[in-house]
């Protein structure tokens, strides 16, 4: 008898689930998929307000040629003073520095591509806009990867695609002359510190294996002194800290950030403290940058899908709350 009772109690029969209870997750996923897809078919123009964080980075990159001219003027002034004092060592140093500065008159931008396929939807549009802006202004670009070796090929493809883009805005750019992609070296912090001493000692060759000594762009770049701005596009927490420590604090460079939306919130305090020039936060940041650059791409396109997906999320939250209050009301009545 006891055995029979135990058997009966152990065979638990779950209550019969309705179709909605069985399939509500699938319905929500399909709705989200359709919302995103709907955004892609929409051609409705989107008006985006460009935030000061985005504007800060845009203006800083835009001002690179001016920064270079300012540095050249300052070095020439110092050279005059050294010649007056007849300080041979100083004269030689300044002449070498000046020669290098004048080889890239529109300045040099270092872009660190620290993203992989999982963060590319947010960071790739930023990289494309930054490269277009730099090439449009005749700024030379140095690219590298600091964290994940897998990012290297992705970054190389992006740079090459944009460099070969022939539009009204700029002529196709040449590898080794207008841009160089250095690739990856292990231990980002040490590599960035070493780049402050000499880029050639940190990277002997570029990603394609060309000797850096033979590349025209590198004739004018020895270390951070010949680089105006550093922009980090990262999906990894910790990388911005390294660049702020090395780039800004140690070598006094202007550092800008492009972060995935998940980690962007952590870096807003650095804008107020002026430790970074600006911050692009996720896809929204990328879309704002495209708007500011007047070169709309996948960022703005993605924001349409974001709008539809967020509208769906709000709708589901409202429905959920109504359902919650109705069931609460029913319970009270019972």
């Amino acid at each position, binding site marked *: 008898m006891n055995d029979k009772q135990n058997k009966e109690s152990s065979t638990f029969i779950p209550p019969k689930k309705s179709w909605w209870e069985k399939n509500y997750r699938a319905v929500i996923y399909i709705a989200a998929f359709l919302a995103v897809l709907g955004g892609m078919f929409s051609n409705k123009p989107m008006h985006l307000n460009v935030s000061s964080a985005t504007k800060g980075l845009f203006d800083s990159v835009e001002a690179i040629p001016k920064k270079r001219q300012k540095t050249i003027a300052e070095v020439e002034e110092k050279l005059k003073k050294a010649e007056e004092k007849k300080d041979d060592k100083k004269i030689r140093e300044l002449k070498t520095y000046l020669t290098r500065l004048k080889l890239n008159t529109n300045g040099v931008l270092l872009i660190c591509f620290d993203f992989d396929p999982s963060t590319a939807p947010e960071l790739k549009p930023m990289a494309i806009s930054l490269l277009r802006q730099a090439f449009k202004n005749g700024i030379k670009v140095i690219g590298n990867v600091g964290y994940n070796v897998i990012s290297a090929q992705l970054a190389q493809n992006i740079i090459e695609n944009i460099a070969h883009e022939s539009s009204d805005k700029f002529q196709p750019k040449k590898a080794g002359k207008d841009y160089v992609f250095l690739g990856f070296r292990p231990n980002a912090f040490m590599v960035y510190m070493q780049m402050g001493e000499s880029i050639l000692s940190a990277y002997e060759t570029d990603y394609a294996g060309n000797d850096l000594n033979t590349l025209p762009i590198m004739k004018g770049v020895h270390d951070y002194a010949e680089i105006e701005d550093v922009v980090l596009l990262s999906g990894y927490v910790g990388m911005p800290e390294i660049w702020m*420590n090395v780039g800004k604090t140690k070598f006094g460079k202007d550092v800008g950030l492009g972060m995935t939306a998940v980690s962007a919130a952590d870096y807003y305090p650095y804008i107020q403290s002026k430790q970074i020039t600006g911050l692009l936060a996720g896809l929204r940041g990328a879309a704002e940058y495209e708007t500011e650059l007047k070169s709309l791409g996948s960022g703005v396109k993605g924001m349409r899908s974001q709008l539809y997906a967020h509208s769906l999320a709000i709708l589901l939250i409202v429905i959920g709350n109504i359902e919650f209050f109705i069931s609460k009301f029913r319970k009270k009545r019972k």
Partner: protein
Amino acid sequence: MIPDTFIDLTGIWVAALLTLCVFSFLIKDNFMFKLTEAIFVGVSVGYGIVLTYQNGIKPKIEKPLIKYVHNLKVDKSAVTNTIITEINHFIKSNKPTNETQLAACAAIPFNETGFGVLMDETLTRSSLDLANQPDVSTAVQNALKNSTLNMKNIFALEKSAEKYSKSYKTVSLSRNLWVAYIIFSLFLGLLFLSRFSPKHAWISRYPMAYLLGIGVGMAMPLNFQTQILGQIQASIIPIVHTVSGTIDWSKSIGNISLIVGILSVLYYFFFSLKKEDIFSRGLTKVGIAYLMIGFGASFAFTIMARVSLLIGRVEFLKEEWIMGTLKYFGF
């Protein structure tokens, strides 16, 4: 985007099907999802190992060591003769165009010519000391002093200097030390592998200690300066912000909000005092409100990030897979 070749199209189809396999997890855990997961991990690790070798071990260890062993066989006097011949050849092929230029070039001392500056720079890069090698130095100086140097082609000069510098690395003491350092680094790196043997795992503590010591030593002062001093400095701001004598209300309110936020959140995390009086409880609640606003913003950003990832995949499926395939077959 239209795939260029059939192989490109095949790649897109594989990527699309794997994407769909991953999405199938949303309905139920299944064999195809597990298979895709295994493929992803395997490919990532394999690809990562190859790339790390190509970008780390090959340029930093393999190439310098092979070059060093190869260059040990090079004859020093032969290298010197080649350099002098190359420099003379350049000078002969770049004759100055007029008398003034000739006089000016001849008068420029070795260290003040463009060649001197660039050469000096190239040598500094490879940590060579020209002064300690009087025979080569004198030979190069004489060759330049007796030359009619034309300065118009600075890159050709630098090219000569680079060749000089590269060949010269073979005979430098600093190069030997550099190679010794590479071997030492390689040895330290190999010690990490001792972790595979439980008996010898303790050996891996040495390279670990070396890495941590250097890392912490270099990062600590910079971190302190960036994270602590920089942020403290940025929070010392005027409560009332004025622009040419008039109060900037929006900025002032922002500053007040910032100061209140910092103090209240710091007070909330100060657990050494009992927060029983009205002021303490009020300040703590304000701190919590600030934290909640921060968390809310982070959460909203997280949703946006996840939707962005979905957008990336849906865009790939729509543009590259469906549209790409249709366009490839001429539809």
